[in-house]
């Protein structure tokens, strides 16, 4: 049980969370940017997540400006 929880914690910690993705997308992830980008360079999973976040942030910006 303890091992499973450790493994789970490691898995959760291995990817940036949604908040970090959004901050990076908006150019606001400062102190953690190095670690984030190094992870991004080899993690296709997070490349897809960032692409989605970028699309969302851009769409919200344009929509909010247009309304």
């Amino acid at each position, binding site marked *: 049980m303890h091992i499973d929880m450790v493994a789970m914690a490691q898995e959760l910690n291995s990817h940036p969370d949604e908040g970090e993705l959004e901050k990076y997308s908006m150019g606001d992830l400062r102190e953690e940017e190095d670690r984030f*980008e190094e992870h*991004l360079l080899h993690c296709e*999973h997070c490349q897809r997540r960032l692409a989605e976040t970028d699309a*969302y942030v851009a769409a919200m910006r344009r929509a909010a400006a247009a309304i």
Partner: protein
Amino acid sequence: MNSAVEPDVQTGPAPPDPSWCDLVERIRTADPSGMEGLYSILAKGVRYYLWRQLGPQDLDDKVHDLFLTVNQSIRNGELREPARLMGYVRTIVRRQVAADIHGAVQSRRTRVALDSGVPLSDHRPDPEHQMIERQNQDLAMRILGSLHKRDRQVLTRFYLREEPAEQICREMDLTETQFRLIKSRAKARFTELGRRRLAPRAGLSPVTH
């Protein structure tokens, strides 16, 4: 770039812990599998990074040039800590991005001096991406239009005006949880609508090229 149609991937499997030391050693010894491994990483991760920073122009050439640079510098022994391969790659990529931007600025100055009005380069997305962007904007407008004025104001202040979350919460008397909920509900709705819209389509992200 793909739009927000992918399933929620936050809980997806973590990537395997890559053995950078092994990969670096294979590159150093000119083992073809090492170069293949490096290229497969750069062709995806670096491609996406460059596309995001510089746009689609000459992307394949830039990725290839970076591959050659990284490969050669590793073989020259310039990477002292193999476990830090991604940090090393990132440094080289960022240097390349800075050089490209500097070159573009210089080129622009020269061209403007020679012939005012000549565009620097075309960084606009291709027609298919433009269409996706328009559709995404329509979705976002539907979502914003369906919200209460106050929630719409929160999202506008955050995404458009880029006001800090703390400031928005303070001035609009919101808790951090309420703020996060407004954002996460809107994003979930966007993802859901996008998934419905693009379900039959193939992915268009540069990540998958």
